[in-house]
């Protein structure tokens, strides 16, 4: 048989004869008839060109995000994409590489991971960052399990802010339920922010972990210094999760305020907002707990000639070495996405990231001001609370209705909160980035006024 051309009819006959079977069905006889599909109702096969045209026509009936003014966010954000990101990403040396099991031979990959760790460490304000995780939701899960391990499994309670992205909380539930960890949810105060005293009360001295998101699901910046103190008062690990990583260009990461773990989603750094990912999780912690950290660490060293080189400094707790006793089941990493984030951040530079974040903030403030000026029936749900580049808009109808009506006016106004419940008004999360020129703001304001 050819090594990469599939088995033909002759090959199949040969294999079946060798196995002493008459047909493919005999080979799969052990599968119960009840779970087998009896034929699929498919149209006849078509050629490639026909498929390309037909599917292309079908796809063009979608409204593409970049084709009309778009304010979608809620965990996935549109940002500028310098060409260099895709150019580096598509190099075969990176594009086809899987996780390095014989790591030191892949110096380029290790250097990228080392730079990624360094960048995340500086943005989060914590000294140790791992070589990436799958996405923000699983990063939160890893932070909770990490806290449980650090406190040696003696505390089975975790305190989670209701203003952490509802999808993250759902992913967390699938793990905590199986691990016997109890989750309590702290709702925000009337200003959409967490009250450190409620957090302190909920955690008592039983919680292994207090997890908060900032900017939170409603776009509001939390009082991180007070929340870190509230978590630590009862001996819990303080975890910050970030869903809009660009906010770290303007707001200091939780590490600067005493948080023990800062983790989250780095899609904003050069990863396109695609359906279902791939996204990119990050995880940073203090050195004292690094052996409970999931994943691996790349370090800088010198080779036998004294030349700068990179090595896998910490991987001994991973699945391929520890098997059932591994620190987590994150064994590979999102290497290519970590590369995208690294190239994107390095193309931006420190001052570039700050400028980018500032422009998101300034445009968001401008839009909020214009909405406030228009007033009834539109209002900003939490007008006094500080936001970064997203806020909750309330108007004449529930969030879902508003989004549909504004879309028919030619604007993708944001993500409705309608289906997610929560102790906040039913409205629309509006995200503004540097990709929204003033004409987008004009378009949204115009559409809103027509709906009033």
């Amino acid at each position, binding site marked *: 048989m050819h090594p990469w051309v599939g088995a033909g009819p002759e090959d199949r006959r040969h294999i079946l004869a060798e196995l002493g079977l008459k047909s493919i069905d005999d080979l799969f006889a052990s599968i119960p008839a009840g779970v087998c599909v009896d034929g699929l109702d498919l149209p006849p096969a078509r050629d490639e060109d026909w498929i390309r045209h037909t599917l292309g026509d079908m796809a063009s009936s979608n409204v593409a995000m970049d084709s009309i003014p778009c304010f979608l966010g809620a965990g996935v954000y549109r940002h500028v994409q310098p060409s260099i990101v895709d150019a580096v990403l598509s190099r075969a040396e990176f594009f086809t590489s899987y996780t390095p099991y014989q790591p030191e031979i892949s110096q380029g990959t290790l250097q990228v991971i080392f730079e990624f760790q360094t960048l995340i460490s500086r943005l989060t304000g914590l000294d140790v960052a791992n070589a990436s995780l799958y996405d923000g939701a699983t990063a939160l899960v890893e932070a909770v399990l990490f806290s449980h391990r650090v406190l*040696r499994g003696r505390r089975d309670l975790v305190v989670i802010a209701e203003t952490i992205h509802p999808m993250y909380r759902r992913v967390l539930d699938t793990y905590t339920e199986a691990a016997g960890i109890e989750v309590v949810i702290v709702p925000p105060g009337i200003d959409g922010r967490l009250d450190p005293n409620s957090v302190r009360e909920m955690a008592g001295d039983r919680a292994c972990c207090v997890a908060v998101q900032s900017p939170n699901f409603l776009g509001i910046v939390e009082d991180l210094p007070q929340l870190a103190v509230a978590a630590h008062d009862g001996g819990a690990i303080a975890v910050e999760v970030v869903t809009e990583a660009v906010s770290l260009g303007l707001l200091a990461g939780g590490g600067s305020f005493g948080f023990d773990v800062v983790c989250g989603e780095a899609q904003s750094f050069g990863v396109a907002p695609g359906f279902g990912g791939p996204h990119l999780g990050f995880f940073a912690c203090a050195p004292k707990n690094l*052996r409970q950290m999931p994943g691996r660490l790349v370090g800088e060293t010198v080779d036998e000639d004294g030349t700068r080189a990179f090595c896998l400094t910490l991987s*001994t*707790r991973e699945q391929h*070495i*520890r098997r059932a*006793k591994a620190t987590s089941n994150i064994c590979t990493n999102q290497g290519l996405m970590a590369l995208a984030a690294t190239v994107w951040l390095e193309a931006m530079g420190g001052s570039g990231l700050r400028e980018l974040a500032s422009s998101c903030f300034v445009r968001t403030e401008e839009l909020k001001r214009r909405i406030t000026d228009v007033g009834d029936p539109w209002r900003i749900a939490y007008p006094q609370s500080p936001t970064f580049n997203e806020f909750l808009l309330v108007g004449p109808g529930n969030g879902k209705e508003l989004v549909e009506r504004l879309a028919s006016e030619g604007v993708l106004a944001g993500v409705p909160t309608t289906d997610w419940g929560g102790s906040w008004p039913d409205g629309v999360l509006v995200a503004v980035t540097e990709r929204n020129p003033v004409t987008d703001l004009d378009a949204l304001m115009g559409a809103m006024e027509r709906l009033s």
Partner: protein
Amino acid sequence: MTIPDDLKYARSHEWIKAEGDSVVVGISHYAQDQLGEVVYVELPEVGAVFNVGDELGTLESVKAVSEFLAPVAGEVLEVNTRLEDEPNLVNDDSYGDGWLVKISGSTESEELLDAAGYEEFLEQESA
């Protein structure tokens, strides 16, 4: 390969020495040699209670992590805090300064081997 006569040994390669009402536990010279350079030692908390064969902690070398087990049942009375900064003591002085934990309990156990028995056990293992 040194196997001191005054110690007892578990088949999982820990050594045990009686000290009054308690026992000191470490890993054998053979075990540290198999592990290679130890870079991190995770010790149990003082006051924790273990049964025979429970995992007391872990020893991390450059390329692997191994558990060390409780050779006798008891409560942890003391741990070797020097290992936090000097994990290499496990390699350099496995029967002395490289000790791991002190547990309440006695070395009286039929499961434990004397030096001659442990040497024989190692020969069988490598055979």
